[in-house]
């Protein structure tokens, strides 16, 4: 269940960034963490990592790998967000929207990222393949066979 929600969260986070790469690049730049030459490459690639990993989680494909990807990303997001909250930068999150008018970063966002990270770890270590594509197709639940 956690796996499905986490996957859906990543899918919905990735799509707006693909729609508006320039807007997302600005959000990445505004974090003032990456060197300028790296900003656009990250802005172009990151949403696809989110989408692919999110889709894998939703369909239950390569779950340990995609859960690891998602956990590493969330750890990075949480660190970047926390660092900028700490130094008091007035920037937008760029998490689920690329619009400059969307929410400014707050501690609430940090809490959200932190809990998502924990759910990533939970999926990584405790997912039993329920509701996965293969179990749905076979009409079985793999957890009963192990």
């Amino acid at each position, binding site marked *: 269940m956690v796996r499905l929600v986490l996957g859906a969260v990543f899918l919905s986070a990735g799509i707006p960034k693909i729609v508006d790469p320039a807007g997302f690049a600005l959000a990445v730049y505004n974090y003032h963490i990456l060197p300028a030459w790296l900003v656009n490459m990250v802005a172009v690639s990151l949403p*696809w990592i989110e989408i692919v990993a999110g889709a894998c989680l939703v369909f239950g494909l390569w779950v340990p790998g995609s859960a690891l990807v998602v956990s590493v990303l969330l750890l990075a997001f949480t660190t970047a967000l926390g660092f900028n909250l700490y130094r008091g930068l007035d920037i937008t999150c760029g998490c689920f929207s690329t619009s400059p008018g969307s929410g400014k970063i707050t501690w609430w966002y940090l809490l959200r990222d932190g809990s998502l990270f924990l759910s990533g770890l939970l999926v990584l270590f405790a997912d039993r393949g329920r509701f996965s594509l293969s179990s749905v197709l076979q009409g079985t639940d793999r957890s009963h066979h192990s």
Partner: protein
Amino acid sequence: MRRFFVQPAPGRAFVSAAAIACAAVAFGLLFNAIRPSGIPLVGDWSARALTELNAGDVKSVNADEAFDLYSRGQALFVDARDPASYRGGHLPGAVNIGPDDVDERPEEVRTLLGNGRVLIAYCHDVDCPLATKIARRLHDLGARRIVVLPEGWAGWLDRGFPHE
């Protein structure tokens, strides 16, 4: 009893994580290369480019261009900083009006817009958003000849240009 925590094979998780990430990055780069709205892989994040990005239709000038306009009597500076900073020193002949003052001081805004000179908005330096904001506001209100001086007060002083 079934164990709650399955033992993942750590090596395999890393391998498939790397594979997923690489495939996604490759796809992202490819997609960006073929889509019409793709962005350059290395972006221009210089001060001027950033200001123009935020300023929409409003163009920007550097300190030399601003000084040139000023010395030909074609420029009117708009100081978007707070009144205390303005009193501490500003560009010659600058009018002090911030983005939040626009609604409260319609008379002054009308005078500005009716002025035949090029309005040059500035604030402290490139990291300050006020100049861009006021320029956009005035532009939306009908000012056609308005530009931003991204280097702002700090850049103007650096060049040793006159101030009051």
